[in-house]
């Protein structure tokens, strides 16, 4: 709600993305969360999310969201380019 902070929103949005991919076929879910984040999130959002994860401030992250974020962080640029156009 309007009282939500940016931090809360970041976690919320990551979870929303994870929720969608949770329903998709198994196997590539976390990878697809990572791709989605990489395609749409601006670096300061990304950096803040990683920072929160490191500081234990992102406990509300769903496991799949966390996994996706970790793949993103680990692979950095290596996650394949992906856009709305596919």
């Amino acid at each position, binding site marked *: 709600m309007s009282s939500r902070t940016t931090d809360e929103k970041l976690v919320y949005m990551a979870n929303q993305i994870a929720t969608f991919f949770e329903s998709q*076929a198994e196997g590539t879910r976390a990878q697809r969360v990572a791709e989605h984040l990489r395609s*749409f999130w601006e670096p300061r959002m990304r950096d803040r999310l990683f920072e929160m994860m490191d500081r234990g401030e992102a406990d509300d992250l769903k496991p799949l969201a966390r996994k996706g974020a970790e793949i993103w962080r680990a692979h950095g640029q290596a996650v394949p380019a992906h856009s709305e156009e596919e």
Partner: protein
Amino acid sequence: MKDFLIPFDGPGGTGLHDDTDMGTPASTSTRTVTLRIDGFEVTVPEGTSVMRASAELGIEVPKLCASDNIEAFGSCRLCVVEIEGRRGTPASCTTPVAEGMVVHTQTSRIKKLRRGVMELYISDHPLDCLTCGANGDCELQDMAGAVGLRDVRYTPGDNHYDPSGTGARSQAEARLRDPVGINNPQFLPKDDSNPYFTYDPSKCIVCSRCVRACDEVQGTFALTIEGRGFDSRVSAGMKLDDFMTSDCVSCGACVQACPTATLQEKSVIEIGTPDRAVVTTCAYCGVGCSFKAEMRGDELVRMTPYKHGKANRGHSCVKGRFAYGYAAHQDRILNPMIRDTIEEPWREVSWEEAISFAATRMRGIQEQYGKKSIGVITSSRCTNEETYLVQKMARAVFGNNNTDTCARVCHSPTGYGLGQTYGTSAGTQDFDSVEDSDVVVVIGANPTDGHPVFASRLKKRLRAGAKLIVVDPRRIDLVKSPHVEAAHHLPLRPGTNVAVVTAMAHVIVTEGLYDEEFIRTRCDWEEFQDYVEFVAEERHAPEAVEMLTGVPAEELRKAARLYATGGNGAIYYGLGVTEHSQGSTTVIGIANLAMLTGNIGRKGVGVNPLRGQNNVQGSCDMGSFPHELPGYRHVSGSEVREVFESLWNVKLDHEPGLRIPNMLDAAVDGSFKGLYCQGEDILQSDPDTKHVAAGLAAMDCVIVQDLFLNETANYAHVFLPGSTFLEKDGTFTNAERRINRVRRVMAPKNGYADWEVTQLLANAMGGGWTYTHPAQIMAEIAATTPSFANVSYELLEEKGSVQWPCNDASPEGTPLMHIDGFVRGRGRFIRTEYVATDEKTGPRFPLLLTTGRILSQYNVGAQTRRTENSRWHEEDVLEIHPHDAETRGVRDGDYVRLASRSGETSLRAEITDRVSPGVVYTTFHHPTTQANVITTDFSDWATNCPEYKVTAVQVSPSNGPSDWQRDYEAQAEQSRRILPAAE
């Protein structure tokens, strides 16, 4: 009119697309017939009228009751001809051609007959031609000339035109004889209740063209001919109705059709007839109607729909046709203004000073807070060329990807959903396609209000027998209107689109109604298998989701069967689909449905997003989104970046920029400090107003470029006056991907077209741009963006318009997409799991609010509120079901308090069963209501498109504006003070 600056249309050898009225509609038959008319041979499609065949030869048979956009009626008898071997003198408008027919259009017998007919007409027509509003533009006058009428032998007797009843031959004479009295029972005074046109029954020849235009073209059925013979009159509804109280929606079709001054634009009466016309494109909605801007000098006399416009085919709605008055409104700001802080009044300054102030501040912010601390918002109301420049400003001049557009808040899920499934972010059809549809599904859209001209075309098709399915929480007009009735209306609970669409797919899959051959040849079979497994689960059955969606299972089953088996099935959808936390998922679900049933890749089918603003499609195409360069190519692609880098001579950022909500969050957090916002009013149009206000207030430099001091400008430091669509050249791209020309008809009142202002600012920040005409910008777009490769102003002059992709593969554009294969290769089925929004009703907020728009107003209303259109909609009202109103003690017209977890506002209630119990509805056209104070910051999971369509609210009686409304009003007033420049 003499000097028509109307473009040529090459193919078919038709040459100049002039406005000649061919008398009757074209026949679509493929068989032809050859005949002789006045000694000339002509070959025309079977079913063509003799009148039209003559017109093809350039022979104009006199006519009054016929016009080529309505069916022939045969009432005036002016168009009689002689046909060898046939008796009598048949009317050429109602007589079809036949092989070998020999026709004479001008014989002494015919001439005599025609004169007689004209004489009768004129005997009951006032001889006031010289002072008549239609003088010079009147078919009755023209026909009197054409038939050589030289004398009227009837003595004045019973007539409709003379109020005095003294036998006067003109109204001027009647007024001299008796200035006040109405002594003639047959005389009816003028009805000038409509703000834009008058109805003067004394000049009516009862040709019924207006009635037929209203029925056949517009589909409103507002007019009838009452009475018989001498007593017959055109009437707008009931006896006591005038145009304003009738069902008339002021589309102007009847005015266009009327051959006399009976129905006449007030602007023509006021100004006089136009002397030139320029073809341009409506700047209101995504239908993108073509208009003639009819001018006298540099004064706009009227806008009339352009017959050869491929989106509108000669029709219009009240907005494009009449609501252009805002362009000359006194509220328009014509001088640049600046101020140090938003508490100060505005100071009018020169363009140089304003631009240099803005550039210095923006660069200062970047020095202090970093390259990524500023950004832009492009406008879906501006041209493609202007939008392209604004995103270029962010990428090439600011050096970041912080560019977003108002499409974020409307159709961004369309981009994502159709991109994922089909590979392209756009609708699949042209508007003509609806003429071949057998079943039309309208989901979360209200075309009669939002996309009126498309609605008229759709209704025409429905009257001809196509079936309609409406999926919408409200009983929109299409569900039941004259001669149109939906086969199924699925009144779902707001927020349950995914469940409904998935249940439809469940029925299609489990009942074996899918098109296996299509899926095998066109789609990814493995993904299809996975999808089938998913949708076939019992939990997606209509019966299983009925409690959740509120849609009766049997009705849903029938609707799904009809769509799957009823022939060509087309889906049209609007913001009721996208503006949800699952907006993208619903778009995917819709795309799945079309693939399942093979309804893709030919006429009459497809998936069609109805775009809100005029250039939403274009602003997305032009690279307004922070993650995509023009043509929907991700910024991470180095080959794509290189194209622009070498042309612009800069290094481009390879990471996505901030989207609007992210910009506002970053502003509140202190890392985003400067915004250049062209032609958008995010404070009024974006959700959660308080958060938007906080974000804007936290910035050091907000530059607003607009026609008016909009709500966002209350938080701005620089105001750059904008220009209207009448004052600049460019292009708009409508919902069919059609690139239409916008042509300058008058000089910009503010001094510069919007693209010039952007260039000034870019250059003040070191951009080094040198555009001298928008055509050069389009050339750059074509050079960098494959789907626009062949687009040029020359091509647009030649063709009138083209639909992208327009490149070597399809040099003249692409009306229908995915004909032989999907853009992405194989169509991709994606699972669509329903996830309930977190915006939930509960004891404190038990009702669901959903929002929308109405016909006469447009978006935040900045333009339409400054026209007479407000007569139809003076304020936003809250629709509430009688049951919900009663339990709250709310009566019709009462002021009510509308509260959500975000905020509260107050407005008047309208009690109606259009909305279901538990659902309330309002529009967001008026800043005083601030409906977005109520909406929340929930948004689509994939694109952050705000969830406008579902907010849990409570409604209670109230006696006036809320505290927020009062404070806001005071702040707005404070913020709008202007100190004029010293003389």
